[in-house]
């Protein structure tokens, strides 16, 4: 056991380095059908902040599925991966991703802490991952809707763009608790407020269907979880770059 831990401890930084080297383009595994990233929503505040001072401050608020346990979990989880990818893709930009991840936190609880987070981070973009804990706890979808609604209004009033991220696709627990009602609420709230919905559920499902990941697999290892988070980081980054039209800006500024 100790030996295994020692090997992991030595190899993990190496793996991270390798990932860093290889990360100039997303791994093939991370490919997402374009239709899942297409959106009409503009992240105009992100674009403005980027234009004026080449700065993007992103705050991630989420529950357990926004983090990873295990060695080097924080750096392998998607918020950190997103920061790395954005820094690479937007060379020279000042990108900062701050993650507020609290496992088992319902959306209502997240909203109650929102003012302080917004005041501290002063984000240009908030990525709000929600729904899983509410579905697990059986929070009434109407209450979930109200909380989400309040939160999105607060964030937008604070001058930040919003990305709502829905649940993970989890085939083993799919028949054990019902997430679809909560996913529907998130879609409706995003539409209502002109927020962007990052459809993690559909994206992960597409990975499972295409065979990129076998999400049915039972494993105690962290490899697959890290890869999935890496791909989510990539998918988020390309969604942000596309919706904020940062690629156009980048071409202009580098020319």
């Amino acid at each position, binding site marked *: 056991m100790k030996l295994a831990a020692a090997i992991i401890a030595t190899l993990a930084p190496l793996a991270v380095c390798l990932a860093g080297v290889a990360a100039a383009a997303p791994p093939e595994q991370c490919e997402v059908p374009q*239709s899942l990233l297409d959106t009409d929503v503009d992240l105009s505040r992100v674009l403005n902040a980027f234009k004026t001072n080449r700065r993007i401050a992103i705050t991630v608020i989420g529950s357990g599925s926004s983090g990873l346990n295990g060695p080097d979990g924080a750096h392998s989880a998607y918020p950190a991966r997103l920061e790395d990818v954005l820094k690479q893709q937007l060379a020279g930009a000042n990108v900062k991703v701050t993650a507020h991840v609290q496992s*088992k936190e319902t959306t209502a609880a997240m909203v109650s802490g929102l003012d302080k987070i917004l005041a501290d981070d002063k984000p240009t973009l908030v990525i709000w991952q929600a729904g899983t804990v509410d579905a697990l706890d*059986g929070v009434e979808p109407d209450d979930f809707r109200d909380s989400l609604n309040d939160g999105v209004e607060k964030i937008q009033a604070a001058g930040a763009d919003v990305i709502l991220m829905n649940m993970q696709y989890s085939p083993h627990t799919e028949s054990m608790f019902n997430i679809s009602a909560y996913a*529907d609420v998130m879609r*409706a709230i995003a539409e209502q407020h002109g927020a962007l919905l990052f459809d993690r559920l559909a994206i992960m499902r597409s990975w499972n269907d295409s065979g990129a990941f076998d999400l049915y697999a039972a494993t105690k290892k962290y490899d697959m979880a890290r890869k999935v988070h890496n791909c989510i980081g990539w998918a988020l980054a390309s969604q942000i770059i596309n919706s904020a039209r940062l690629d156009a800006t980048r071409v202009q500024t580098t020319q």
Partner: protein
Amino acid sequence: MNRSEQPQGWAPPSLPERRFCRENDAIVTIIVDKQMISQSSPVGALLPSSTERDLRLDLFRGVALWLIFLDHIPQNIVNWFTIRNYGFSDATEIFIFISGYTAAFVYGRAMRERGIIIASARVLRRAWQIYVAHIFLFTIFMAEIAYVAATFDNPLYAEEMNILNFLKQPDVTIFQALLLKFKPVNMDVLPLYIVLLLFFPPMLWLLLRQPALALAGSALVYVLAWNFDWNLPAYPNGVWFFNPFAWQLLFVFGAWCALGGAQRLSGLLRSRIVLGIAFAYLLFAFAITLTWYVEPLARFVPGWLSAWMYPIDKTNLDVLRFAHFLALAAVTVRFVPRDWPALRSPYLAPAIRCGQHSLEIFCLGVFLAFAGQFIISEWSGGPLIQVIISLIGILIMIATAYLISWYKHMEGRGPTARAKPPDADFAGGDV
């Protein structure tokens, strides 16, 4: 007098039958003209009461049971054929409506012929049977969960695995399940059905005397439930997924139709205007549903419409869902007459047979959906496996329905067997 009590070789006199029809025009729609039976069958008078019933009910309930089974396997490619993808309502509405219809048909007759005590006792016995069936399903569900908890692990799903936490306190969980407060996903329909039946005797009593008043009362409860957020509490949080205060409307409406309401509506149902409205609404619902699956189309839905329309609430039987069911029913009644020859064809017989044993087949369907989902997740099933599992599931449901018929026949509840006291299972089929 119940027909299945009649001894072999006994032909009921036509006079009481006719008088029965005249006195109770409510029942007229159900009773097939005796002459027709005699013509179509040499033993017309001996046919079991099941031939009196509207086979369309069995057919559509059978189909609804198949659809519920298919919908309960998440990520099943065959789901694309189920009606929930083509409109607002789904198989649940069909099931609850037809259940109300048959409950009124069977217990309504019992209440007229044998009085309120006997009829109520039979309704309550039925509720008890459904309760036992529900607890049986719960046990199977617990076994599946416990197995997954013991064998499945993946750090990616650390959060989702919290669903298994309830295994840590079986004392609470099992009690809450017995109280019908803790209901695993997909196990919401039977508790709804139990509550609907518990309150059915007084409702039936009223329906037999003042059908319009009963229906109005039911509608009032529906409206009040919407206004004051009435629902039953669930465990660990929240409320029942199928709000009984809302869904009772569909059940009572079905019962009202069975007791003469359908007859009263028949003029309306024959009108071209109604048919036109029904078609237009079905088309509208289809177009809206399409936007859920084809994202780019969503932009064509005007903002005011979405603001007014969404959410389309299943828990509280959204009025859009109810209207969708009504439209579907209006169109169906129009194009599938009760004497439709295909109803006697061997191709539809399997669905009809499933519809006639609905409680057993419903439970079997929930179990098969668990099992199918389990197989898909254990062996990473692709589309082909999903299709095969869906087909095998439906075949098992059909085979079981025939097996149950065989048992009932053998035990003396069939047409040629010795007469036995009737029960809800055969006197007009399951409720």
